[in-house]
């Protein structure tokens, strides 16, 4: 056993695959211990918040102490954030159309540009070729530019409870800073939030766990059915074999994904839990395991060690378990790994079609893709809502397949380099 494990881990492919898979598995197990909130809890009222650190604005303003930092170029960066290159170009365009010489305007020199702008801009002037929308844009731009170069701070006022009059509470200078870690309400969204305002990372970790369970259950169901049918069919032969191989052929000819779709559809949205889906996937994907096991058993059943076992008076069940199964066990393990990986993919496929587990309880990788698609994350460019999901699916199946080929190389000496 120890030698066997040594052999398996001597395969580089297996080691890489195992490391990736172990990392994913550990993340799924450990993450919920640290972040304990439920994965499907709505956290933000907005949708598709981009990845980042979020600080409560109210707390950060009222926060004391405030620090005064004198940073070079702080003003420029603030202005640059409000006045982007497109706006500068538009300002130049307006000024040129208004009759100023083109070369006198330097879009890079913010102070000079604003000065020229304030001196010349008049919202009432209608320039030739300018639509109403354009005019409104320039008016909005002009309002936004007000006070951009001002050096005094922003005043925070609180309405008086009885009179409703605003009363100055504090002044936030442009050089005021707070330490992000001292603000009591801040939240990190490494992968942003999704369309329902849920933390994508937490959801992804939970979804990975559920998908792995689905894959595992589907793989177990498929492997157990496939193994039993394959063993019986291959070893007994004759009529039993014919009957089983007939059913197997039937399932082979009809694409299993279509059967899967039909079954899940007929189960109905309400009854579709993650485990139900997993069992259904398992029930439709045992065919290849059966065929492979049967072929192996047929090649084994006339081996001399099986004949010897019969001559020693062992029963068929005993021979199947002691003389056939150990010889194909490594093969079955490899088939199981592939079944797990294809189970995860099948769930993803079903869920994208909207036939996955019902959405209220648990996230799955497929459901996350489905939500991303329905809410047009891919069109809106909200990559964080679907790309990490794709990456995780790819990594899981990649690591499982890598482990499988690694095992294959160990168990099939003919494939060794």
């Amino acid at each position: 056993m120890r030698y066997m494990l040594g052999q398996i881990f001597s395969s580089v492919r297996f080691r890489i695959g195992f490391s990736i898979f172990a990392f994913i598995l550990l993340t799924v197990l450990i993450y919920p211990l640290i972040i304990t909130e439920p994965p499907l809890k709505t956290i933000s009222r907005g949708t598709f918040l981009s990845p980042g650190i979020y600080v409560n604005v109210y707390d950060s303003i009222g926060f004391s102490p405030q620090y005064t930092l004198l940073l070079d170029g702080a003003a420029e960066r603030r202005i640059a954030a409000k006045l982007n290159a497109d706006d500068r170009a538009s300002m130049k365009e307006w000024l040129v159309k208004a009759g100023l010489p083109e070369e006198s305007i330097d879009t890079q020199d913010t102070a000079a540009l604003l000065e020229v702008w304030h001196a010349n801009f008049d919202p009432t002037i209608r320039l030739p070729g300018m639509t109403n929308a354009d005019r409104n844009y320039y008016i909005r731009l002009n309002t936004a530019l007000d006070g951009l170069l001002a050096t005094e701070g922003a005043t925070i006022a609180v309405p008086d409870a009885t009179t409703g009059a605003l009363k100055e509470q504090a002044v936030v200078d442009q050089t005021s800073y707070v330490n992000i870690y001292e603000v009591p309400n801040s939240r990190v969204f490494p992968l942003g939030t999704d369309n329902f305002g849920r933390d994508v990372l937490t959801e992804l970790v939970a979804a990975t766990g559920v998908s792995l369970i689905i894959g595992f259950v589907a793989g177990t169901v498929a492997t157990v059915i496939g193994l039993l049918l394959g063993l019986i069919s291959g070893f007994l032969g004759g009529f039993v074999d014919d009957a089983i191989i007939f059913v197997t052929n039937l399932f082979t000819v009809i694409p299993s994904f279509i059967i899967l779709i039909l079954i899940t559809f007929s189960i109905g949205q309400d009854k579709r839990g993650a485990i139900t889906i997993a069992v259904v996937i398992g029930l439709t994907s045992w065919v290849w395991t059966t065929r492979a096991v049967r072929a192996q058993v047929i090649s084994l059943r006339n081996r001399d060690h099986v004949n010897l076992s019969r001559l020693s008076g062992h029963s068929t069940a005993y021979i199947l378990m002691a003389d056939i199964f150990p010889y194909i066990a490594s093969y079955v393990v490899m088939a199981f790994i592939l079944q797990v990986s294809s189970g995860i993919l099948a769930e993803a496929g079903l869920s994208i079609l909207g036939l996955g587990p019902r959405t209220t309880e648990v996230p799955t990788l497929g459901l996350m893709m489905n939500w991303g698609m329905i809410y047009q994350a891919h069109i809106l460019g909200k990559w964080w809502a679907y790309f990490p999901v794709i990456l995780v699916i790819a990594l899981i199946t990649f690591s499982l397949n890598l482990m499988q080929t690694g095992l294959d190389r160990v168990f099939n000496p003919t494939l060794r380099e």
Partner: protein
Amino acid sequence: MNMKSDDIILSGKGVTKIYGFGPNRTVAVDHVDFSFKRGEVISIVGESGSGKTTLAKMLLGLTSLSDGQIYFEGKLRDIRTHRQKREYWKNCQAIFQDPFASFNIFRKIDAVLLDCIRLRHGRRLPDEQKVEMMREACRFVNLKWEELTNKYPFELSGGQQQRLMIARIFLLRPKILLADEPTSMIDACSRATILDMLMDLRSEIGMTPIFITHDIGLAYYVSDTVYIMEHGRFVESGSADDVILRPKEAYTRRLLDDVPKLHEEWDLSTV
């Protein structure tokens, strides 16, 4: 000659095995008749594809007959149930060609030997007695049980494994032993050891060995009666000296001609 019917230990009438049907139909064994006398050494000689291995499997009861009957000790052999089969296998055992493929690599040597004790004596023996029996069987084939216990068969050499196979037969004490090419996979020097042990075993437990082989020399060396098999039929049978030294059938003659010999010229012009 007045021969008492109980002298015949195993006989067959019209024994036939057909595989497949329709265009795939192959007749592996085609209506063969035989009667093997108790205590004689019998050889069935044939080239690959002659049906000798299929016949051996039918004699062992591992494959069903398509047609014909096999009589064991004068009575029609009935092995339809598992219990009947077990009963038959107490009397009829086998040694296979490839020792490396004959043992389950996941089971230890002790398990293999204990299986035989269980088949013959049931489960009720005390452990010390079982150990004593295994020890005795190993001693018979020149192996030390102390060195074998808790080991796997594949840890032994080919010759040792084949000896372990004989130890199995020693424990089972069957009336018939089918030896399917028992020496073709082991070295020439171990061959004599194996054959000697089989012959010793024969006198020890009074069994009837049936050799299934392609090696006509081996058949001549060990057996009293030789059956030559071609395309599922026996083409010639008789005492070893008659068949090998004075062959009547063309096929037997050709078979003998094709074997390289030491004292006779090997005529290569006949191919």
